[in-house]
């Protein structure tokens, strides 16, 4: 039976199983509970550190909610099974880390092309290759953006704490459903394994979105059309007698393959881009601290946004006009806001647990006269408040 997550029975089960309140839990568990509250009832995955606790939590909790946990033979099979299940109407998720994320890329592209809602959590770990398998990192910023081939848009979120991970996971599902698209969540090994206070809300406080379904046969016959002008086609689910044809090859509005007509490819791929670009209000999100008068702007994401905030607070104590900008949706990058903030800042620092990735996005939106500097650390140990503060002082 297909579960959307908002049925009275599901609400009853959630209420019975998870009392609202504060819990001490790992970031990975927070992701799993966020998924459950958002209505995810299908998880297919393959274990990999540091993401495994997401699978373990889902394996334990999903049957209680009449949901399905599948341990597939590999990551390629995991994302494939998710796409299959999503076309039956289930909300689906998988979690993995670098090597598994690499394996999923081909089918992530398939999900983009077939406009299949799914949530893919990449708990970033140190690389390349097996790297430091158990250590956190932020090295997959561009793998999320450009990992699969072709001209594809992608939405990627990145939470900054366990609590944030809960809500960002809910948001990831809602975006996936509203825009009929895969959503990547760039988590990291540090937050994944950090235990901290996470407040579990009442299910009534959680927005639960569900994909647009065809209103009539007419709409069902155009699974890749744009009847509402927002670029988001209603999704005719399998099993309803619509005889839907889904293919990753270039297809017309009716789903049938046409790889020879340039206009068909152009129309399809541009609409998929327009669907993402044109619906920024659905997913664009960032956080700002002291940006009003900031002369030194720190731009940071994910786990590193936390020591970055610490450093900005201390700098303020010292009388330095520092501010912090944290893109929460990292792709598409909140470039317009970045441009505005960049105009006011004298120096911009970009701390990340990599050798400089998001800084390239920042660079695209700031003028050459701004001093732009990365604060980079690799090796599996997160940046500290002091390491970032030292850099702030250095440009103050």
């Amino acid at each position, binding site marked *: 039976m*297909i579960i959307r997550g908002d049925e009275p*029975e599901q609400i*009853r*089960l959630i209420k*019975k*199983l998870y009392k609202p309140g504060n819990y001490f839990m790992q970031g990975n568990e927070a992701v799993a509970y966020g998924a459950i509250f958002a209505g995810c009832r*299908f998880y*297919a995955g393959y274990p990999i550190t540091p993401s495994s606790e997401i699978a373990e939590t889902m394996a334990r909790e999903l*049957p*209680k909610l*009449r*949901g*399905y946990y*599948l341990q*597939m*033979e*590999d990551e*390629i*099979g*995991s994302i*494939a*099974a*998710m*796409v*299959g*299940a*999503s*076309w*039956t*109407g*289930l909300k*689906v998720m998988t979690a993995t880390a670098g090597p598994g994320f690499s394996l999923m890329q*081909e*089918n992530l592209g*398939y999900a983009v092309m077939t406009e299949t809602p799914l949530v893919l959590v990449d708990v970033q770990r140190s690389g390349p290759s097996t790297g430091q398998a158990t250590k956190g990192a932020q090295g997959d910023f561009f793998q999320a953006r450009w990992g699969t081939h072709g001209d594809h848009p992608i939405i990627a979120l990145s939470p900054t704490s366990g609590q944030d991970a809960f809500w960002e996971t809910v948001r990831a599902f809602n975006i996936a459903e509203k825009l009929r698209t895969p959503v990547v969540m760039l988590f990291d090994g540090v937050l994944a394994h950090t235990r901290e206070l996470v407040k579990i809300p009442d299910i009534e406080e959680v927005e639960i979105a569900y994909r647009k379904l065809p209103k009539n046969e007419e709409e069902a016959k155009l699974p890749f059309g744009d009847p509402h002008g927002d670029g988001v086609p209603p999704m005719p689910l*399998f*099993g309803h*007698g*619509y*005889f*839907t*044809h*889904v*293919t*990753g*090859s270039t297809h017309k509005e*009716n*789903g*049938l*393959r046409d790889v020879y007509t340039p206009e068909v490819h152009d129309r399809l791929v541009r609409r998929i881009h327009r669907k993402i670009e044109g619906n920024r209000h659905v997913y664009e999100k960032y956080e700002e601290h002291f940006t009003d008068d900031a002369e030194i702007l720190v731009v940071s994401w994910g786990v590193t946004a936390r020591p970055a905030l610490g450093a900005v607070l201390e700098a303020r104590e010292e009388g330095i006009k520092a501010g912090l900008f944290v893109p929460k949706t990292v792709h598409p990058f909140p470039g317009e806001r970045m441009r505005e903030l960049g105009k006011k800042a004298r120096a911009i620092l970009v701390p990340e647990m990599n050798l400089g990735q998001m800084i390239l996005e920042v660079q695209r939106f700031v003028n050459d006269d701004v001093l732009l500097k990365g604060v980079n650390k690799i090796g599996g140990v997160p940046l500290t408040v002091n390491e970032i503060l030292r850099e702030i002082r250095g440009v103050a």
Partner: protein
Amino acid sequence: MAKEIYSRYPMIKYLRKEALPTALCPGCGGGTVLNAFANAVDRLKLDPKDLVVVSGIGCSAWIASPYFLADTLHTTHGRSIAFATGVKVGLPDKKVVVISGDGDLASIGGNHLIHAARRNIDITVILVNNFIYGMTGGQLAPTTPYGAKTTTSPYRNIEHPLQISETVAAAGASYVARWTTAHVYQLIESIKKALTVKGFSLVEVISQCPVQFGRRNRMKEPAEMLRWYLKNSVPISKAKNMSPEELEGKFVIGEFVNRQRPEFVSELNKLIDEVQEHFGLKEE
């Protein structure tokens, strides 16, 4: 003219007319497989609304997707069984069928094939074995006979072919059969059984690719390939008493297994029921 032929072909009702004519070469065994599948569906009186057909990439992947008028999911190369697994979990009451090639299902997709058989998930796989990569221009496949010529084994194939049916039977499938396109009636019967068996079922069809395989191996005409199949097919009952040397280059045909084993999706739902019971979650 073409229209007339269509209207005289009773199975046309199962085809997506706007997708015709098919992309398959004249004389390709794929047409026979599609015909056999449509006949099996017809004889079982299955409603196509209760079917979801999944395929990967390759000529054989085209046989039922997009041509068969049902929900069809045309996936990435090798992954169709994994996609189908998700579909089956979401729609346990529908018949989920995978139709694809040997390269697709047994080479790049070999891992999914054996694990779906092990899991014994209720999916029917019709694996079209033409001994070659047809779509990409006739390269070596894991099923190419020892000694055969392909574009990437231009001198001769020095690898040994994978025995797909034997492998899948050993992995735990509920039903496994192998036929050739020269055994159409047996093939239809096997597809019918595969569709009715609860559990993982595989029907391997040895099918002619005159264009990419036949042409390079002295069998340009489809009929020559069919004669080759007929001449070298050995029923499984007879094969049991033959030595590996005697079986070299032969096609063992027939039913390999037909057995009842716990099926994955029912086990999954049974587990869910138990957990619901255990935690007192069922609605009173």
